[in-house]
Structure formats: C-alpha cells, structure tokens
C-alpha cells in the first residue's frame, strides 16, 4: 500500500470534521455556516474513502459519491435560502433568524 497509513487519513478527516463543526457552532453568517457544513461533510467523505481503501471494499466510495450528491442538493437549497433572506432585506445572522422559538 502506497502513501501514508490509514490513521493519518482518519486524523485529517477528524480535523476537518472538527473545524467544520466549530465553524457551524460559532459563526453567525449563514454563508459561512453552510461552508463549514461542507467541510464537515468532506471530512466524513475522506474517512469513508480512506476506510474503503483500508478494507479493500468499494462500498465506502459509493457512499462518498452519494454524500456528495446530497451535499450538492443541500447547498442548492441552503444558498437559495440565503438569497431569499437577503432579498427580503433581513439580517444575514443565524441568531436573529429565530422565529421557531417556543
């Protein structure tokens, strides 16, 4: 097996996921939140692909592909929402979009 060992990949995946999660948690701009979400998904994808190679099993790669498809559609919806919010001249701040408070 060429290249670094699987654990390196997993560590990188964990780092990406953690960075993304932190971004989602602390940033208030919905655009950045979406971006961080993408980073989280990519971290997950990296883990899937790495383990797929580790176990010599193609299933992980297929999973990664479907995650990408889902991520693409999710970004479409998310960006659509951001544009819609902007058009209505509302603040681009996730903390102020809290209409669902009980």
């Amino acid at each position, binding site marked *: 097996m060429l290249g670094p060992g699987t654990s390196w990949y997993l560590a990188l995946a964990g780092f990406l996921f953690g960075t993304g*999660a932190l971004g*989602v948690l602390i940033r208030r701009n919905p655009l950045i939140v979406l971006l961080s979400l993408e980073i989280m998904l990519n971290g997950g994808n990296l883990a899937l692909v790495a383990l797929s190679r580790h176990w010599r099993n193609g299933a992980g790669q297929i999973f990664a592909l479907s995650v990408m498809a889902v991520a693409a559609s999710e970004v479409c919806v998310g960006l659509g929402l951001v544009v819609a919010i902007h058009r209505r001249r509302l603040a681009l701040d996730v903390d102020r979009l*809290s209409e669902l408070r*009980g």
Partner: protein
Amino acid sequence: MTGGAWLCLASPLAGAVLITLLGTSVPRRVAAWLSTASVAVAFAGALWAFFSLRSQSGHHGEITTAWTWLQAGNFSAGMQLLVDPLSTMMMLIVSGVGMLIVLYSIGYMDGDDEERRYFAYMSLFVFSMLMLVEGGNLLLLLVGWGLVGLSSYLLIGFWHERPSAVAAAKKAFIMNAFGDATMALAFFILIAHSHSLAFGTSFTTVTHLSPTAANLVALGLLGGAAAKSAQIPLHTWLPDAMEGPTPVSALIHAATMVTAGVYLIARTHPIFEHARTIELIAAGAGALTLLVAGLIALVQTDIKRVIAYSTMSQIGYMFMGAGVGAYASGMFHLMTHAFFKALLFMAAGVLIHALGGEQDIRQMRGIGRLMPLTKWCFLVGALALVGIPPFSGFFSKDSIIASTLNIGWYGKVFWASGVVGALLTGIYTFRLWFIVFPGEPSPFVREHLHKHHGKEGPWTMLVPVGILAVLATVGGWIQWAPRWHYVTTWLEPAARTLAAAEPTNTQEYVTSAVTVAAGLIGIAIAWAVYSEETLRVPAVPALRNLLEHKFYADELYDALFYRPASGLANWLTRDLEEQVILPTGPDLGQTALDAGGAASRVQTGLLRTYVFFLATGAAIVGLVFLLVK
C-alpha cells in the same frame, strides 16, 4: 314463478330510488304516480307468482338463490327468495292493498309540502314488507323486519314539525327495536347450533335442541312478533302511531307491519310447535290483547284511535288462531282484516280530509247525511269488522274462535275471550258509527265540511274505498270452514293446521251462532246507548279512568323504565358529572398546558444551540461506545 317474485320485490325499491334521485326535477304528481305504478307492478308480479305457483302440481313452492349474500366462517346466507303458498298470499295482500292505499294517498296528500318524500317512503315501506314476506331465509326475513321498522318510523314521523308525531315515531321505533333484538338473539342460538339460518335447516335444528334452548328460540321470535304486531306487553306504540298521515295508518294497520307477527308465527311454525308452551303463550297474549284493546276502544274519542285499538284487538284474534295452531284461519283473518281495516281507515280518512283534519268523533256528529257514499262504505267495513254475515269478517273470525275449542281448559278460556271480544267489537264499532253518521249534521260539520268539487273527495280517494268495500264484502267468501276451505287447502304445503286446532262442523256452527249473536247484541247495546239514548252508560268513574288511561300501560312503563333511567341519568349529572368529571377536565387541560409550556423552552429557535445539543449528544453516544467496548 320466481321471476314474478323478483319483479314484485324490485319494483317498489326501484320506485323509491327513482323518486329520491329525480328529486325536485319532476312535479309532485309524477312522484305520486311513479310510486303507485311501482306498487302496481309489484302486484302484477305477485299475481304472476301466484298463478304460476297454482299451476304447479302440489304447489310446494321453491327457493331461488341469486347470489351468496353473506359468508362468515362456516355460516353463509344467500340472497334468496321463497315462493310458496304462504309468501304468495302475503305478497298479494301487501302489494294489492298497498297499491290501493298509495293510490288513495295521491288524493289525501295533495298539496302537502313534501309529497315526494312521502311517496318515496311509501314505496320503501312496501318494499320492506315484501322483503320480509319473500325472504328465503331467516336472515333476510330479519332484514325486512328491520326495514319495516325503519320505514314505519319515517312515515309515522312524516309530519316532523309536530313534536307528538316525532315522539310517536321514536316510541314505535324503540319498541320495534326491542323485538328485533330478541329475534336476533333467537337467531344466534340457531346459528350456534346449525351454522345456518335457512328455513329448512332451522326447523330441523330446533328438534335437536334442548327444550330450554328451543323455548328460548321460540320466545325470541315471539318477542319480535309481539313488538311488530303490537300485542301485550309491547302494544303501546300502536295507538300513538296514529300521528302519521291516515293512509300510513291504513298501510301500517291493514296490509303491512302489524300482520308481520302473524306471518312470522305461521312461517316458523315448526319452531313454535316444538316449543308448544311458547306458542300457547302467544295465543294467550292474543286473547288478552283482544279483550284489553276492545275495552280501551270503548272510551276513545279520536276516530283513528278507535280503529287503531280495533286493529290491536283483531291482531289479537290472529295471534290466538296462529298460537293454537290454526295457521290458515289466522292468515285468512289477516287477509279479510287487510280489506276491511284498510276500508275503515280510508273511509275515516275521507271524513278527516273533508273536515280539514278534525279527528274527534263528537265533532263529526251527523256527517252521514252529507257524505252518503262514505257512510255506506264505512258501514260495510264496520259490519265486516263485527263479523256479521255475509261480510268477510264473519268467515274468518269465527273459525279462529272455533279452533280453540279442542285444546284443553285454556282453549275454553280463549273461546270465551273471543266471544266477549266479539261483543266488545260490536259495541265499540257501532258506538263510533252511531255517534258519527246518523242524525242531523252538527254545527261544526256544517261549518267545516269542504267538499271536493261537490264530491266527497277526489276520485283517487273514492275509487280505492269503493274497491275495498267490495273486497270487504266478498273477500271472505273464498272460505267457509264447515263447507269449503280454499285458503286452508292452499296453505297446507306451507303451514298445515294442527290436528288439535281443527274444529268439528258442529263446533263451527255453534261458535258462529254464538259469535254473531254476541256481535248483534253489541250492536244493539251501542244503538240503545248512543242512538236512542234509552240506556245510560253506567257511571263507574274508576273503570272509566282505567280505560281512558289505557290500563295505565304507558304510566307503568314510564315508572318501570323511563323514571329509573332518567333518575339515574340525573343523579349522574348532578353528583358525578358536575362534581367530579367537570372539574377534572379543566385540571387535566391546565396540567398539559403547563407541561407543554415548560417543554417549549427547549425550542430556542437558535440554530447554534440545536447544533450544540446535537454535537454533544453525538459525542456522548460515541464516548459510551468507546467505553463500553
């Protein structure tokens, strides 16, 4: 043969459905004629079935199955019709007299706001009754039984703006539902033993049952029969049912409904013969009813109620006949009674119609001079009811009374009550006659009588009355028990008269003589008291009160059933509902609201809190997995 039966059954149903669907898109007249035509077609079908059955050798009849109607486990019931002597006889009576009554309704209901609804109900009623008599197994019979209850409810309460009509309709429905329930229970016993409700199977099954079970089955059937036929103790609905339009009273009391009980006993006679005690109880109930109803009829002042009580009394005779085992005599009286009772109701209807709805006989005094045709038709009906030869009642009533003579000491009691009943019939019928018809017209009559274009009524009303007057005269001639017995022979394959209930010719002659004498004495008493006024009614206030309150039956049921139930309901409202349940409801609601309010704090609306909780949760789950592993 079966084609006629299907036609007979389907036509009134089609009429009812058609009138309902056409609704206001056709004039009222069309709805009325549609209904009449549908019943006339049914009568044609009945004639077809009758003549083809007559040409069959032995005329045993047959059962035709159209499809399997109901299948549950190993129980199955078909959509079957039975064409046999008993059912064709009933088909002819129901559709024939029914046709005349629907025709009569055209004149009587003219101008009513809801004529179409009325005629749809009438067709439905005739269909229900035909379903009852033609049903080829007990389940279909019960279907017809229930439908008759429903349509009578609809028709009695037809004038739904009158509270009394609505109350009467409910009363009739509840009493009938009681009978339906006892019948259903009897059927459950039969199903449990034979998985079938076919007539033949049920009749053979009963012989394998224990005496108790057989008695229970017969008792259940008797409950249904007594409720439908207004026999004591389930009789109180019938006089109240007079709240419906007069043709409805004629239909309920003459051709359909109340005769269903007699038909049921004749149809299921093998069951009753296996439970002879119950059959004799039926006869006893009939004997009691005929006396009680005859007594109550003596003091009624509403023309329709007098006739209603006379119906109860005559059905009592039929029950007595069918109960002792003289099914043919009972069915024969059912037929002649259909003629003369429909005649009496419809003649009374002509009077009521001409007087603009007045039903009190004391107001009608002397109407005979202005309405001669009605007067004579009513007289024919009255003579047939009392059983004076050669009118039809004479031929049928006397054989019933004679048939009780050979069955032990209670037979003698039945015989005596039958004769006393004949005396009472003479008195109350001619009390009505002498009060209403002869003499100078009263001021009320002169003021309120509205003739229809100078005639006593529209032709649609007078023609049926005329036809029935002829039938009430000659209808009884087809059987005179000592000499010729066409009806008994005809019914023999379906309901053979028990040997014990076959009187000798001497008994017939003696009974006839005594009964006719009793009837004539009754007429003479009525004449002396109400026409000549030479005799005074003895003043016994207690007795008069008893009769005017109909032996306190309504009051008794009120005290026995209504008061305890409403008392319990009131107590529950006051002490349970208001004290416990009412406060509990708001408490429960408030608690739920509080809990919801507390829980809703979790929903902050902040995306980041949600993500935080999610991440923390996932982290905890991950940690648990790591540690437990």
